[in-house]
């Protein structure tokens, strides 16, 4: 595509919140203070499964400053669902503010509202809960047994509707291969923990909730329904977010905060500790994945089927949907004539699992990329050659949703990556080096894709409202939830580019349900693709409206009015200029009009975002430690609106992917169900020092509809990293490890087994 020279689009500019963040000036929700504000602390339960039969709160009431003590005995029995993100969505609806049926160790059993955090905390400690204990099912195996304790009335198991394309059973290709992969539970690592402020105004009966969320309108609907208030009386304001990675997609603590605010007619704040964030928000599912494929001798894939079993934890919440969506993602990368997916969700007496960055792409891609790397090895094919034979071409049919994959460049990702990473040379060198010695080298790669919208899972639209101020500056209202990664900056750039004005003249506000037009929420990597289109169209329409106003002022026809650098002029009188400021003043003073425009766009496509990751590792066979020596990610982003921030996203994906593949795991006590790791001291993550100087390459061929050709990047960056690392470790060691994370102990265990087998063979 011919690359146009833009003012802002494609230029590297920092996240507009960066200065405020590094100087500490940015206000997060937990930083908010107000006179008379009250604080909530929750009390964690002491059993994995059972019933609350009594609560002695007398000790708590003796603590000064206590305003309310809530338990299952004095709060509503109303059910809600944290995972529901719109009023019209169906969901399992299994949660209560406080349930007498306790389903996991550490589940909240009570809460105290007091004048200070310390008083609330002290009072929580003084509440005495009496339990009746039931047998617990801590592992999926236990929960799947016929005589397993019932965690929910309808049982512990949910089977997703199989996702099918073609007829896998009819496949007759000669090579049948089976593999298994496993992902452990992990936490989201958002630096900001959950924080919610809720204020109920006695006079007006209005409730305002501040939260660093991903779905302000979704939260509003849950709170309105839960508290039986009209949505018009509930206002949800998104505050600056210190990272989400999916955990802030759900309505976790807002119902309690809102209930307390309304009950006490007060202004209340709740801030989770890290321990609560890990145990009482949600974790990423632990998943077992089984893949079977049938492949022809030349490497062409005929069919693939995947069976996935997800551990939902104590409540289903988003898990049925998450599990189904995984199946929907089977056909995004390869041309496979026959596909079948079966998903099962199992509730266990453990902490709740839920939304996580990439919503199923990470799991499903790990399963099939681990699988294809094994198949390529069995067929003695290079993994890149194997993929080149099978990947989608631009505008191929994406079989599970019957839409096209859009203007995508899978081949180019593979070919450019192969060359830039010097794949063939590295592979050869590693094989030569690995003859003996303590350290082994390995290379690995994987390919992935993800969404740019939620179409056609459901319709997807974006709305924006733009207003030219009487000094010529611009305010854009768009239902955006910046996760901290610079989407507000992207919207400012889009608006400034269209309006041809200085970036500083453009203000983009984040979502406030009392001001903004409807938005579904910033998930499914839809922000840039959908909301970016809305902002672009809105600004284009606004410019036309301003042009008509300028035509009046310049006594001409709009079609004869040109626009350049924020000024209108008549084609034949280029020296007589009318600025946006003059146009706005003329509109208000003379014509009695405000220069504003609202626009809506609807998604027509959901272009894929091909993403290939190449990596080289060094494995210490004495300690089991894996060092990532070098890596490269190639992303078909359509257009990088802000290349620096895209490179940053790639780095975040590599770091998180390294954690998933090599070290991150929230361990659960197999006997008691207790979450054993609830702090960052014991939670192993890949640190900045562990991440190599990665390379990022972008393919920018432009999408048909995306703003300036842009597609998504925020989630896909992490998806191919774990399977590429798994492949590299296996390449180094000659193993087939697929049970993640590949910690040093797992690696030494595998080496020990390998040596035992060798000595057995001799």
């Amino acid at each position, binding site marked *: 595509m011919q690359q146009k020279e833009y003012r802002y689009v494609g230029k590297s500019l920092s996240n507009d919140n960066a200065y405020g963040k590094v100087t500490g000036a940015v206000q997060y929700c937990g930083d908010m203070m107000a006179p008379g504000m009250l604080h909530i602390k929750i009390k964690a339960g002491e059993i994995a499964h059972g019933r609350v039969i009594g609560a002695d709160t007398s000790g708590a009431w003796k603590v000064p400053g206590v305003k309310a003590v809530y338990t299952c005995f004095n709060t509503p029995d109303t059910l809600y669902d944290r995972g529901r993100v719109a009023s019209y969505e169906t969901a399992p609806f299994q949660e209560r503010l406080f349930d007498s049926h306790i389903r996991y160790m550490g589940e909240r059993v009570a809460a105290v509202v007091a004048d200070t955090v310390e008083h609330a905390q002290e009072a929580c400690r003084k509440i005495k809960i009496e339990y009746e204990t039931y047998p617990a099912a801590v592992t999926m195996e236990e929960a799947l047994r016929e005589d397993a304790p019932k965690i929910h009335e309808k049982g512990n198991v949910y089977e997703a509707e199989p996702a099918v394309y073609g007829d896998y059973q009819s496949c007759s290709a000669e090579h049948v291969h089976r593999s298994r992969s496993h992902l452990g539970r992990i936490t989201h690592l958002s630096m900001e923990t959950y924080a919610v402020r809720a204020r109920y105004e006695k006079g007006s009966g209005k409730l305002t909730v501040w939260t660093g969320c991903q779905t302000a309108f979704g939260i509003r609907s849950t709170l309105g329904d839960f508290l039986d208030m009209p949505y018009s009386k509930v206002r949800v304001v998104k505050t600056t977010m210190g990272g989400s990675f999916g955990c802030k997609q759900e309505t976790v603590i807002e119902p309690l905060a809102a209930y307390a605010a309304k009950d006490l007619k007060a202004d209340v704040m709740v801030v989770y500790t890290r321990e609560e964030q890990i145990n009482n928000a949600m974790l990423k599912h632990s998943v077992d994945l089984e893949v079977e494929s049938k492949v022809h001798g030349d490497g062409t894939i005929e069919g693939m089927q995947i069976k996935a079993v997800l551990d939902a934890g104590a409540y289903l919440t988003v898990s049925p949907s998450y599990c189904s969506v995984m199946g929907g993602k089977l056909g995004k990368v390869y041309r496979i004539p026959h596909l079948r997916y079966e998903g099962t969700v199992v509730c266990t007496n453990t902490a709740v699992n839920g939304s996580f960055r990439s919503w199923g792409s990470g799991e499903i891609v790990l399963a099939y990329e681990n699988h294809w790397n094994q198949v390529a090895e069995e067929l003695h094919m290079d993994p890149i050659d194997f993929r080149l034979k099978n990947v989608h071409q631009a505008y191929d049919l994406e079989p599970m949703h019957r839409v096209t994959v859009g203007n995508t460049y899978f081949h180019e990702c593979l070919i450019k990556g192969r060359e830039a990473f010097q794949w063939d040379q590295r592979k050869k060198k590693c094989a030569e080096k690995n003859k003996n010695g303590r350290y082994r080298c390995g290379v690995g790669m994987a390919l992935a894709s993800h969404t740019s919208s939620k179409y056609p899972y459901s319709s997807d639209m974006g709305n924006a409202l733009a207003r030219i101020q009487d000094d010529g500056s611009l305010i854009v209202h768009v239902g955006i939830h910046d996760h901290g990664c610079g989407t507000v900056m992207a919207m400012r750039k889009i608006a400034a580019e269209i309006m041809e004005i200085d970036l500083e003249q453009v203000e983009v506000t984040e979502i406030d349900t009392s001001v903004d037009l409807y938005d579904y929420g910033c998930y499914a990597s839809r922000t840039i693709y959908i909301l970016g289109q809305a902002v672009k169209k809105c600004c284009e329409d606004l410019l036309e409206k301003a042009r008509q106003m300028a035509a009046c002022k310049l006594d001409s026809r709009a079609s004869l009015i040109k626009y350049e650098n924020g000024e209108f002029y008549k084609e034949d009188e280029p020296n007589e200029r009318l600025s946006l400021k003059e146009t706005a003043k003329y509109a208000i003073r003379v014509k009695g009009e405000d220069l504003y425009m609202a626009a809506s766009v609807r998604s027509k496509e959901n272009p894929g975002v091909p993403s290939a990751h190449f990596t080289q590792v060094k494995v210490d066979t*004495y300690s089991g430690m894996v060092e990532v020596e070098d890596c490269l990610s190639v992303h078909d982003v359509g257009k990088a609106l802000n290349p620096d921030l895209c490179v940053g996203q790639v780095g975040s994906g590599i770091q998180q992917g390294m954690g998933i593949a090599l*070290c991150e795991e929230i361990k659960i006590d197999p006997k008691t169900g207790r979450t054993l790791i609830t702090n960052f001291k014991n939670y192993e993550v*890949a640190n900045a020092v562990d991440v190599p100087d990665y390379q990022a390459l972008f393919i920018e061929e432009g999408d048909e509809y995306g703003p300036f050709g842009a597609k998504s990047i925020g989630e896909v960056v992490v998806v191919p990293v774990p399977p590429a690392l798994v492949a590299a470790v296996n390449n180094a060691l000659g193993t087939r490890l697929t049970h993640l994370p590949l910690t040093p102990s797992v690696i030494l265990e595998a080496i020990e087994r390998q040596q035992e087998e060798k000595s057995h063979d001799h």
Partner: protein
Amino acid sequence: MNSNYIQPRTRQELSQALGQMTENSRIIAGGTDLMASDHGRDSSTDLYISLFCLGDMAEIYREDGWVRIGAGAVHDAIEKNPIIQENFRALSMACSKVGSQQIRNKGTIGGNLVNASPAGDMLPCVCLFLGEVEILRADDTTYRMPARDFILGAGKTALKPKEALYAVWLPIQEGRSSTFVKLGSRKEVTIAQISMAVSWEKGEYFQKIEGYLGAVDTRPIYLEEMNHILSGRAVGREEREELVSSLRERIRVIRENRKRPPKLKITEAEQLYKERAVRSVVYDAIDQMEGES
């Protein structure tokens, strides 16, 4: 509960403050462990005594053939101190591997010893260098005892009520080199799974080798076999493997004598990890020794 806070500016003021301590009082130096452990808890602490303003406690100097390290000296300062680098290289190396740079800027050697975490990086070093600890009493007198006797077990020391660890003394031993190896769960910002501090007499071959293994038992373990296996000869694969086997056996015995495995070591692979990975520590230590000689 409300706590009192005293910040003495002289040793005398500190002694007086020690006199006010009850069993619920705590001394705070860098605070890198204490702040984390007290955060959000129902603290019964009635008094905090801060060592922030005691300049003397942070000083490192030579005196009568000993090097004296104030208990309040931070890891970063010890790591970079030329006297330490010259005479106690293993200690400097150990300090450079404690936590993150931020932790090294605040955390102190005294705190590391008093907390007596089995994974504490200072413990094997002060034992290796035959260090002594100097303890201040409420009457403003001090006494010294071998560091080896000071550490009693996990989280346990010989410090008595109303006493504070004031300084660490290390005797200078001419003609010796030392090194330190730490195996954590990752490259940096990590807690030791196994650590090893070794010293030896310089010469054609390693002689008079002293070694301690840290983080595998509640206290550092003295490795008498090191000298036997490695000294006075060219060290090859055979010697290395002999030492590996010996240490592996030691760790196995410790594991088997435990009542139950550590709570985060759930799988067998996790429980056997140290036994397997000790090979990397032995090889790294000997590689470093050879590099140094």
